[in-house]
């Protein structure tokens, strides 16, 4: 792919008392790509995202976003540069309406939209994520499927260049998963780069251009979906040691 590299990770290490969550992970993501990150439970996927967006400080290594080192920046500063994440365990502002939740992203993200312009964007995003009908409901009253979409909607409202989706399909039923995959493809078509973590290989294989496989904090494979699913390291990580 001739596209430019938008995100580069080099030698990323994160240690939690005695546990090596990430031990020297390297990869690069090109502009416009859907880049999947998979691995068994506890492989370090969510820690990796947390390091990318500044909610966790890595012990060593570099994260470069559009050529700039960002691994020491605060979370809000990274969002304003155009790198945003959703949370695997949804974190809505429960006492705010769906619309107000999305407005936080629109007001304080990269776009910093105000007034009429903000209102229009918020309406657009609610429409796109299928939340228009629930716009004035308190976030605390949504179903899990709606909450997952709200996570995506808020992140989109920040107008990211790179969107990191952390298990947005977890807990969804099969028809909701199909919808979510459609949403992800449509987001990519708008020119955004997407990183997505999924626990299940099959959800991610269908939409990703390339896939990174982590196990015990180590990169065990990287490549196209078809190559990765045939990789013996990946198979043994998922099926257990023989």
């Amino acid at each position: 792919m001739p596209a430019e590299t938008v995100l580069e990770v080099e030698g990323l290490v994160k240690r939690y008392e005695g546990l090596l969550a990430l031990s020297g992970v390297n990869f690069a993501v090109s502009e416009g790509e859907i880049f999947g990150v998979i691995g068994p439970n506890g492989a370090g996927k969510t820690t990796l995202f947390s390091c990318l967006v500044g909610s966790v400080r890595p012990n060593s290594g570099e994260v470069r976003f559009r050529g700039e080192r960002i691994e020491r920046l605060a979370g809000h500063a990274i969002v304003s540069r155009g790198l945003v994440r959703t949370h695997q365990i949804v974190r809505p502002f429960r006492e705010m309406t769906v619309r107000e939740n999305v407005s936080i992203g629109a007001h304080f993200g990269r776009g910093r939209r105000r007034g009429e312009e903000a209102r229009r964007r918020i309406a657009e995003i609610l429409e796109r994520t299928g939340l228009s009908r629930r716009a004035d409901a308190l976030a605390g009253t949504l179903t899990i499927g709606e909450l997952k979409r709200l996570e995506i909607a808020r992140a989109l409202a920040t107008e990211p260049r790179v969107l990191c989706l952390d298990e947005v399909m977890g807990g969804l039923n099969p028809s909701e998963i199909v919808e979510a995959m459609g949403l992800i493809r449509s987001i990519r078509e708008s020119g955004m780069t997407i990183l997505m973590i999924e626990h299940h290989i099959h959800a991610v294989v269908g939409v990703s251009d390339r896939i990174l496989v982590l196990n015990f904090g180590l990169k065990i494979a990287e490549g196209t979906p078809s190559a990765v699913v045939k990789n013996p390291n990946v198979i043994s990580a998922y099926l257990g040691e023989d």
Partner: protein
Amino acid sequence: MRKGQGRLLAIEAAALVLLLAAPRFFERGTLNDIWNVAFAVILASAWNLLGGLAGQVSIGYSAFIGIGAYTTALLSLAGWHPYATLPVSALLAAAFSFVVGLPTFRLRGPYFTIATIGVSEAVRVVASGVSFTGGSSGLRMPAGSFHFLRDYSAMVILAVSVVALAAWIQASRFGAALRAIRQDIDAAEALGVNSTKYKLLVHALSAAIVAVAGSLFAINFQYISPNSVFDFRLSLSIVLMPIVGGLGTVAGPVLGALLFGYLQIKLLSSPALRDSYLFLYGGMLILVMLFEPKGLLGLYHRLRGAVTRSGARTVPDAG
């Protein structure tokens, strides 16, 4: 401007007119009571910006009252017009708010709250110990600096303005950021909200308001001492008023202040009850926590909902 804001502005304007006209109809004792309630409204509303909206509980707000009161007393003694000292009080308190906020707002957890107790006690001890503040015997304002009607009007104007400001903040982007911080600070940060900056800003704003109220306190009472303005019990009442009234709302702190102001006036006039007010406050706090965490305002919404049984949902932040 939203519809609710227009209505609130009308209520505010009417309240201001009535309060400013009150000296024509009431005697001094009643006006003093209104002054006291207005003072409580300012403290409760200002605290609520930080504690209620942003969820950062400070138990050291008497420090800002004291900073305002001492600034005004000292500068007035140095020849300033008492009202010319108000901006200095506000700035000093805002600057001081950073002393507590800068080291603690970056941390997650109860560090800020704990620091506020320590710092406010430290300020009280310093004010009692050094000589230029008059030590524990306090300071008397210069003769001729008291003018009841002027001081009464200043206090009610400040009270109405602070409530209007709170309503404006509530509906603004700034207010939205603060509510997001209270509900989930990490999620707010992950959507681009600079949480440390907004916490520092609202703390400074709220401290400045409280300090100006402290300045007006010094002007009205003409005498201040560490025990009158740096009282820890005062800090506690400031926390309790918004909680009892309805945390994070505009009307809640006002309701709480009206109730506390009224109670205090009643209790202080009865020697038997004078020392029991903390007991009473504690009891109210327990009742609110157990039965109506949204305070008097929440109770009102619930009752109104039960009476009208209309399907209209009550929005917790309206008010």
